[in-house]
């Protein structure tokens, strides 16, 4: 495995996320803090689900491979549910913090809006999720070895990288939709986000059949992207204005001439 594989997979997996971070989050200290806090919440959810899985493995029959796989699937489902629970918990915490800050500062506007928080927290979840999924694999890809020498798929690294990119972006979209749904109290949307997350994770059970895993995942990614775009206030008109550099609000706020 070569440096090309290592760098290629790293950039595929983290490229979009890091660009988003650099261009939209890195300059605002408050956003960076909430990003890291989001990553922390995801980590705690993972810890809890690992704890439950670990206990269940200890009390189970370690010889039976089928049982172990079943437990793993149970672990995945539990982890997804816990992640979404923690996303909700983070939302509640942010609402409380924002209210507290408002009353303290007696200002009309919050220093950071709930939509920005949704985006940032989603990306935080995504970063952590992606990092935990793929960093060990990337580290191995920089070392010596031959991929798939025992008959496994040759595209392990590449598919991992693509799946990771999808997951990171999906987390961001889920964050935006989830927070907005919580704000507007439409619980069906919240439920739908949870179901879609479960669906994407369960799709990966079909690995290494990558066409059955990656293609639906990217279709879902595209769908969620469109949903998140409309939730965040985008529309075809906005998009057209932005792409042709005629969006006056955007230009004004960035002090650029048309």
């Amino acid at each position: 495995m070569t440096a090309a594989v290592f760098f290629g997979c790293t950039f595929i997996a983290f490229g979009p996320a890091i660009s988003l971070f650099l261009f939209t989050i890195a300059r605002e200290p408050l956003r960076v803090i909430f990003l890291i806090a989001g990553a922390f919440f995801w980590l705690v959810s993972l810890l809890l689900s690992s704890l439950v899985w670990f206990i269940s493995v200890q009390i189970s029959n370690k010889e039976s491979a089928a049982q172990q796989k079943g437990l793993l699937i149970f672990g995945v489902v539990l982890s997804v549910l816990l992640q979404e629970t923690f996303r909700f918990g983070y939302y509640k915490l942010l609402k409380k913090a924002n209210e507290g800050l408002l009353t303290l500062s007696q200002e009309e506007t919050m220093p950071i809006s709930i939509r920005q928080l949704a985006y940032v927290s989603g990306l935080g979840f995504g970063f952590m999720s992606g990092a935990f999924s793929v960093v060990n694999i990337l580290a191995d890809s920089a070392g010596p070895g031959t991929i798939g020498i025992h008959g496994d798929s040759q595209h392990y690294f590449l598919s991992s990288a693509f799946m990771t990119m999808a997951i990171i972006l999906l987390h961001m979209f889920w964050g935006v939709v989830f927070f907005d749904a919580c704000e507007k109290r439409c619980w069906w949307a919240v439920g739908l986000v949870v179901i879609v997350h479960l669906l994407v994770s369960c799709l990966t059970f079909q690995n290494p059949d990558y066409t059955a895993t990656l293609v639906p995942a990217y279709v879902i990614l595209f769908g969620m992207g469109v949903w998140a775009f409309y939730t965040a206030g985008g529309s075809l008109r906005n998009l057209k204005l932005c792409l042709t550099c005629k969006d006056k609000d955007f230009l004004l706020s960035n002090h650029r001439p048309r």
Partner: protein
Amino acid sequence: IWDKNELRGGGGPEQNGHPPATRPAVQEVEEDEDEEMTLKYGAKHVIMLFVPVTLCMAVVVATIKSVGFYTRKDGQRLIYTPFPEDTDTVGQRAVNSILNATIMITVIIVMTLVLVLLYKYRCYKVIHGWLFLSSLFLLFFFSYIYLQEVFKTYNVAMDYFTLVIIIWNFGVVGMMCIHWKGPLRLQQAYLIMISALMALVFIKYLPEWTAWLILAVISVYDLLAVLCPKGPLRILVETAQERNEPIFPALIYSSTMVWLVNMADTGGPRRESAEETQEAAAPEPAESPPPLSSPQDDGGFTPSWVSQQEHQLGQLQSTEETRRQIQQMPSARPPAEEDEEERGVKLGLGDFIFYSMLVGKAAASGDWNTTLACFVAILIGLCLTLLLLAIFKKALPALPISIFFGLVFYFATDNLVKPFMDKLALHQFYI
């Protein structure tokens, strides 16, 4: 982390250069503006701390992962941890590590008390010389060893003449930047580098269980020493307040103009050096090593020295914050030059060292997930510490929360999350 006002005996809210009694009318307005600005400046300063801490950790992790020297156990120990850990039984190992940690923490307590006494009796010259000599040692000797090991790892052929020139320049510029004047970024870079070097030394020479125990005990000690009324650090802080001197600008990472630190301090940095030089002097004559341990590897850099930094620094950090808040409040007094300095944040090098040591040990165990988890945990701990400081405005230690989170996440990730994620990666399941 401490509030000047509280120790002055209460009185009104923090005022910018005026005694509290004279300005009651503008009190409320200032508090409101204070809160809003606190948040904005608070976030900015949290990030100003995140970046150097992240850089230091990155240097340590990169070194640990590439240079094998710092993870190799050569059987040498510091004289402060004389009991070996490669014993036959687990029980014996536990007892040895507890003894090691006890010795270390006793040394630290003694050094802190000596420090407080030296400060009380104004032995500033001793401290100054000590600090100078110890940073000299660190910048030349340890960086020489580091460079040597890096060359060995990458099989770079290097002659002594070039090496001497490199080390000489590195060391001299470092001494100038740290103790005198220099470009801010260069000084920050040097402080990060020496913190990383110290953390690497600890990672190499402290045995496994001893290191974890020391981390835990140091956090508890920090908590006690700062919060208890008779704690040495609290006494130190109060003494400095009485004398109206800035405490220990020594060996702090500062994000703004640091030459003002040297201007402002009279005895601060000097204090620390007194201890170090005495420490460094003591092992030198006693070169014949006792059978159990070899003191050659201990450069006289007792971890106690650095922990003192972090004790003070934990406070310093908040000191600057409260001073900054005060500076931002409107006042009739024209802003002093110290304003620039106050607007920045200062963090103790001891904090850097122990954070990096924790993350470095996580990296040494081989798993990147653990490293990442500890990194995030420490950053969140730092965030929470600063938040608590902003809320309570009272003396708080800087280490405990971060180290506690770091330790919890290290052991939890290493034992629970790692097998789970490994199994998931094996089947390529995604959560």
